[in-house]
């Protein structure tokens, strides 16, 4: 009898402890993540504060990694935590290299660090992502991506389960689980704010606003 009661109490306390632990790790985050970002010198390769700094090709070539100052507007919730624990190549080539393949050697974080850093990065929002875009496969967006502008010339997508397409842009093969469609539209329609100098051409003024919206919805649905 006494033993039974003891068991109940200990089960309860284990349950309580894990519930508390869960609450603690869900809350841990922004401040801890910011600290980890600093101590691990992530900023040596990633710009974490806007606005965009690159003005010339030299400025861009001096960068060692993609900007994260609008990460909270760019990435799907959940993507960053998983990626930081197990960073698989996003760009098929090393950052801005024309010769070296990306071997996936990005720094890995522990589960707790990844959760904290992801919470911090998701707190970095851009006020220039204003228009809501619903991700959806749509014939107009698809036609622009595949025929009218051949975006696949530089971006990988999945064709019948296999990766196909160019290698100098970030892979868009699973854009639906990585990128927010709202941000894709903002990036395409407002390159001056998000990425003034890059080796992808500007399409604002070449495609109409309606076309950019269909295109962003289509890219945001790629999986």
């Amino acid at each position: 009898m006494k033993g039974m009661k003891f068991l109940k109490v200990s089960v309860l306390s284990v349950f309580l402890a894990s519930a508390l632990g869960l609450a603690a790790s869900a809350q841990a985050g922004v401040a801890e993540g910011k600290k980890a970002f600093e101590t691990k010198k992530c900023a040596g390769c990633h710009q974490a504060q806007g606005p965009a700094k690159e003005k010339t090709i030299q400025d861009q070539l001096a960068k060692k990694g993609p900007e994260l100052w609008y990460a909270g507007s760019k990435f799907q919730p959940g993507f960053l935590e998983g990626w930081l624990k197990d960073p698989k190549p996003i760009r098929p080539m090393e950052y801005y290299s024309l010769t070296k393949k990306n071997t996936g050697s990005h720094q890995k974080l522990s589960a707790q660090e990844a959760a904290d850093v992801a919470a911090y990065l998701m707190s970095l929002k851009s006020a220039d992502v204003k228009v809501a875009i619903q991700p959806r496969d749509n014939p107009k967006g698809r036609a622009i991506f595949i025929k009218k502008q051949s975006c696949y010339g530089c971006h990988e997508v999945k064709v019948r389960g296999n990766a196909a397409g160019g290698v100098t842009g970030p892979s868009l093969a699973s854009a639906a689980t990585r990128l927010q469609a709202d941000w894709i539209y903002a990036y395409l329609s407002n390159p001056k704010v998000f990425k003034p100098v890059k080796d992808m051409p500007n399409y604002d003024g070449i495609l109409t606003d309606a076309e950019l919206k269909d295109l962003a919805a289509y890219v945001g649905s790629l999986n």
Partner: protein
Amino acid sequence: MIKTSKKGIVTAITLAGVLLLNVSGAMAATAEENYKFYCAQCHGLQGRGDGPNALPSMPVSPRDHTSAPEMNKLTDDDIMNAIADGGPATSKSSLMPPFGKTLSKSEIVALKDHLRKLCNCKGKGK
């Protein structure tokens, strides 16, 4: 009291010139720089049409800019139209992207001159 010496004016003009030079120098890149940054990913660093995006699975290959027979089929205007508006401007594939909203008019002219050096050819009708 305004009293400007000749020397002062000359200095001011020189200064203004240096500033102007710096402003344009900081923004516009040379044709070589632009080619390496934007074009080489498909056309290759030497312009032979063999950049990392020139994959066998692509429906058409990037133009070999060192080939005089190929580049002689194009007028200077054809080249500049293709760069500004993409392949469809010269009835070619849209795999050749439009750079008209990325590069300035003068940068596109300079790239055309650069391509004429690469092919060592003058173009259609010349």
